[in-house]
């Protein structure tokens, strides 16, 4: 008996329909379109994932990917326009909440849609270099909702107003702010920068310009610096709570420029309260604060150093003329050493042991002797 018969290769008929009939595509598309409607209306539990996935799969397999993709764009755009209207209709404070709620809905719907259209995402889209579903959803949201004329300006002004309120002491809903800002960041960092950060920095500069003007008229250097420090820390804390971490350096630059750099000379030379007075009165805390704030601005420390140097030379000259009157060399040397000690301590404790200040101190005393 011969060995087992050679297995005959049996190619069975395709079980899948090989219909390239456009009516077929139309039918499948309407099923999918209906599903997308249901998803946006929170009615997905009645839908069968497998059926929708299979329909999308068949459409792409039979070369109707184009129809599927453009249908998706049209349907999503229509839904987003409606969503836009409902957000616009929200009154006052509810505007941001409504926006946030619709954004969450959209994200969820987008994920579901991407899941059922996964086959198209995997095959059709890379082949045609079109935008993948998830990114497409974000772009459509940006174009139809965020950049809709009625929403764009209202959104920005609400965000800026809330930040202003927080700066004047009110408590705001930080969680909501964080969600909205994160939404802008998710859509694209350029959206965050153009639609929010740039105007935010401009408005902040204006705010701090006015505030610093107000303070400098009524406060002495020590108090002014205290207030400046508080504001600076406040801004840093605000960033950690609900802004993009990259904004920290931008907003601190604004505060530093408006509150410190613009008023530096006036603060240092303020009569009875300036830097020299701080030295004479041993105001360690104020000196430390000044050092920490001034190091943040260009030339802050070099100017401070120069004032210290000329002050030391003044002291030196004083000592020398006094010594000539006293004719007591021991006393002179003692007082010289005392002064050196005093300034050593100041540099040590208040100026972070900054070498450049140490050097300036040493060279000033060398100049005397």
């Amino acid at each position, binding site marked *: 008996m011969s060995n087992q018969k050679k297995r005959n*290769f*049996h190619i069975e008929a395709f079980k899948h329909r090989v219909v390239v009939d456009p009516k077929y595509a139309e039918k499948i598309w309407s099923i999918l379109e209906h599903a997308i409607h249901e998803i946006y209306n929170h009615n*997905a539990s009645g839908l069968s*994932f*497998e059926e929708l996935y*299979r329909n999308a799969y068949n459409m792409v397999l039979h070369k109707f990917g184009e129809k599927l993709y453009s249908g998706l764009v049209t349907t999503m755009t229509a839904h987003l326009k409606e969503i836009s209207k409902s957000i616009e209709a929200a009154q006052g404070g509810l505007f941001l909440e409504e926006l946030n709620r619709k954004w969450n809905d959209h994200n*969820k719907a987008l994920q*579901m849609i991407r*899941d059922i259209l*996964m086959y198209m995402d995997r095959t059709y889209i890379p082949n045609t270099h079109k935008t993948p579903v998830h990114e497409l959803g974000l772009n459509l949201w940006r174009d139809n909702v965020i950049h809709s004329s009625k929403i764009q300006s209202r959104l920005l002004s609400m965000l800026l107003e809330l930040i202003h309120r927080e700066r004047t002491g009110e408590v705001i809903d930080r969680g909501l702010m964080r969600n909205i800002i994160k939404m802008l960041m998710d859509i694209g960092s350029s959206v965050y920068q153009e639609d929010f950060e740039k105007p935010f920095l401009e408005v902040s500069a204006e705010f701090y310009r006015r505030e610093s003007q107000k303070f400098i008229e009524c406060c002495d250097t020590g108090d002014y610096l205290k207030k400046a420090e508080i504001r600076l820390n406040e801004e840093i804390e605000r960033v950690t709570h609900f802004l993009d971490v990259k904004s920290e350096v931008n907003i601190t630059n604004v505060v530093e420029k408006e509150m410190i750099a613009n008023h530096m000379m006036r603060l240092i030379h303020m009569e009875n309260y300036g830097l020299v007075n701080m030295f004479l009165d041993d105001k360690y805390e104020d000196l430390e604060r000044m050092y920490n704030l001034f190091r943040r601005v260009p030339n802050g420390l070099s100017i401070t150093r120069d004032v210290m140097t000329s002050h030391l030379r003044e002291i030196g000259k004083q000592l020398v003329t006094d010594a000539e009157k006293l004719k007591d060399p021991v006393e002179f040397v003692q007082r010289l050493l005392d002064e050196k000690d005093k300034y050593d301590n100041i540099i040590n404790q208040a100026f972070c042991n900054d070498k450049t200040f140490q050097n300036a101190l040493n060279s000033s005393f060398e100049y005397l002797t």
Partner: protein
Amino acid sequence: MKKEDTVKLISAEGMEFVIDKEAAMVSQTIRNMLTSPGGFAEAEHGEVTFPEISAVILEKICQYFYWSLQYARGKETEFHIEPELTLELMMAANYLHT
């Protein structure tokens, strides 16, 4: 096998295969099905019907899932495919993203 860890796959003819969720999720498609937000019917009931996959193919696919898990753990063995199943199996694999 606990009920919560299993999922039922149903072929075109109505034959049911109950397998571990971990095995089923070797298929990206099934994984998405079960983890998609929004509660599609399949995730709710823990069963998926494949009207276009026959029982023979579905059975082979389930075997593949388990083989794949073994392979991931380091045990290399050959996965035998009967030649006459090849075409349909490939189509199903493409569909299930496996």
